[in-house]
């Protein structure tokens, strides 16, 4: 299993570091119990909390069991934070650094859940099924290699309530209804799974750049777990500084026995993609040059002049992009050589 919980930023949530640590421990144990009690249901293709339990055979059972799991997590977390609050009165540091209104909320609330607020995402698998669930932001990606090409997916449905710096949370009063999940028991398991807190997708977005980041993580993993851990610890700090400025947590599930082979496939894919993009840009540059030459002799109106100006800007950008792709190609070629040698050594 892999679990990530991200404590909310902001003064109000001044014990969210404790809240998230407790939530990870509680979730891990709850998942173990779930698996022991036989939480699965056989033969179901990938199904999500957005599907109608009436129209997908078995989903009603799975939905019921998962909601029981989520209820158990919420109840145990609330118990744990209440105990922590009782055993740990406000410290001197908290009294001096946290706004009075927030420690008053902590002191007066029946349950101090806001003080400990955090998000949660988890993935777990057995020999017969896998499932993933989430409350709050952050992105959970699966990777499958299909005909040598990476196919990324985000199988847990997104919740539009998680928007910009707003997120749903385990500390919400209706947390149980805010859990989203996916479940699959047709024995098709992802090649790898990545769970990243929102600091990462606020840096890379949730599209190709985020996928590129995880492809680079897979390349590091192929060199060995220790090296990958070292790269993550050092580089995530730098990525956070240059990107979202938020803290970042990443959890990954992968199969070490195929890591090098996947690295070679990913690099082959990136090189093919690089060639296709250069071909496309080459053609765009030729078109723009022809249009600029033609337009230069036909300027009559203000709008034609503006259009010509933008074509010239587009041409400059296309040439820069082409040059960057050429440099990237050199780097990819070097990398692929390295991983091919690594693959040969392993054989």
């Amino acid at each position, binding site marked *: 299993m892999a679990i990530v919980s991200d404590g909310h*930023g*902001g003064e109000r949530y001044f014990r969210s570091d404790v809240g998230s640590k407790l939530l990870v421990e509680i979730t891990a144990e709850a998942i173990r119990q779930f698996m022991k009690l036989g939480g699965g249901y056989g033969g179901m293709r990938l199904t999500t909390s957005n599907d109608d339990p009436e129209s997908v055979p078995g989903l009603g059972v799975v939905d019921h069991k998962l909601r029981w799991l989520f209820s158990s997590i919420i109840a145990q977390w609330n118990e744990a934070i209440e105990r922590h609050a009782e055993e740990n009165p406000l410290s001197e540091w908290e009294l001096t650094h946290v706004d009075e209104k927030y420690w008053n909320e902590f002191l007066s609330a029946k349950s101090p859940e806001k003080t400990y607020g955090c998000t949660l995402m988890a993935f777990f698998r057995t020999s017969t099924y896998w499932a993933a669930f989430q409350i709050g932001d952050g*992105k959970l990606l699966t990777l499958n290699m299909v005909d040598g090409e990476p196919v990324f997916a985000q199988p847990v449905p997104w919740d*539009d309530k998680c*928007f*910009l*710096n*707003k997120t749903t949370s385990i500390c919400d009063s209706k947390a149980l209804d805010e859990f989203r999940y996916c479940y699959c028991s047709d024995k098709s398991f992802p090649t790898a799974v990545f769970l990243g807190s*929102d600091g990462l*997708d*606020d*840096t*890379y*977005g*949730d*599209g190709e*750049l*985020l996928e*590129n*980041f995880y492809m*680079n*993580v897979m*390349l*590091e993993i192929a060199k060995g777990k220790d090296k990958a851990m070292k*790269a*993550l610890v*050092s*580089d*995530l700090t*730098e*990525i956070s500084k*240059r*990107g*979202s*400025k938020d803290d970042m947590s990443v959890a990954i599930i992968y199969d070490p026995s195929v890591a090098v082979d996947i690295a070679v496939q990913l690099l082959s894919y990136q090189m093919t993609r690089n060639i296709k993009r250069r071909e496309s840009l080459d053609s765009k540059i030729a078109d723009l040059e022809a249009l600029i030459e033609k337009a230069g002799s036909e300027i009559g109106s*203000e*709008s034609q002049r*503006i259009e010509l*100006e*933008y074509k010239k*800007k587009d041409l400059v950008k296309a040439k820069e992009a082409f040059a960057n792709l050429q440099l*990237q190609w050199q*780097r*990819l070629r070097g*990398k692929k050589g*390295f991983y091919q040698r690594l693959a040969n050594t392993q054989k």
Partner: protein
Amino acid sequence: MGLLDNESIPRRQMTLFFLIDKSGSMDGSKIGSVNDAIENVLPIIGEISDENPDAEIRVAALEFSTDTRWLYDEPKEGKDFIWQKVTAEGMTSLGEACRELNKKLSRSNGFMSSPSGCYAPAIILLSDGGPTDDFESGLAVLKNNSWFKSAIKIAIAIGDDADMEVLKQFTGSLEAVIKVHNIDALKKMIRIIAVTSSQIGSKSSSATDESKQKQVEEQITEAAKDVAGAESAAAPAPSKQDNYDEWD
């Protein structure tokens, strides 16, 4: 090799929207000043964007009168935005402008990308009158838009005929409406509001969208006190000569 090489880390994006009333009553010095002021502030926004390691500011402009029209079919960086002079004629279809803005405040066929990696947009509405179409239903659509709800929203009321209630409804508060009474004040406030919204809107901080709105409101209200012929609609300046409209 490592996780950093090969891929650059993109800056987060913030989009600054100008919604420009170009109805017939804006003809003459009003629309001329709007054209001058926005054209002149674009390079400054470009500089703010270039100097900000965290965010790239893009600009989009919608003109509305009887119809609506986006100046370009995609937002452009401030330094790349070639201003097209807006000419005044027609009615004030602000309701339609709201619907059009709603379409573009979207990821599918709109101007926005994923909320991940973006800041909330800033929207500046300039108007000298009242809507001549069904404003309420247009605004109702817009108010359900998550991007609009999170956006910094400021309105400039150009002269005494501007419908303050409508501008208040659009921005959500009277504190976000600045009233101007002459050409000089109009030009200065466009510049101040565009620059302040861009700076605060593109700032990486733990500030919530609500508090960014408040920061912009406070700063422009303070700035308006030093501009003759400008005043916050929530705290009008004491009556004096430069509170009277003077547009010729």
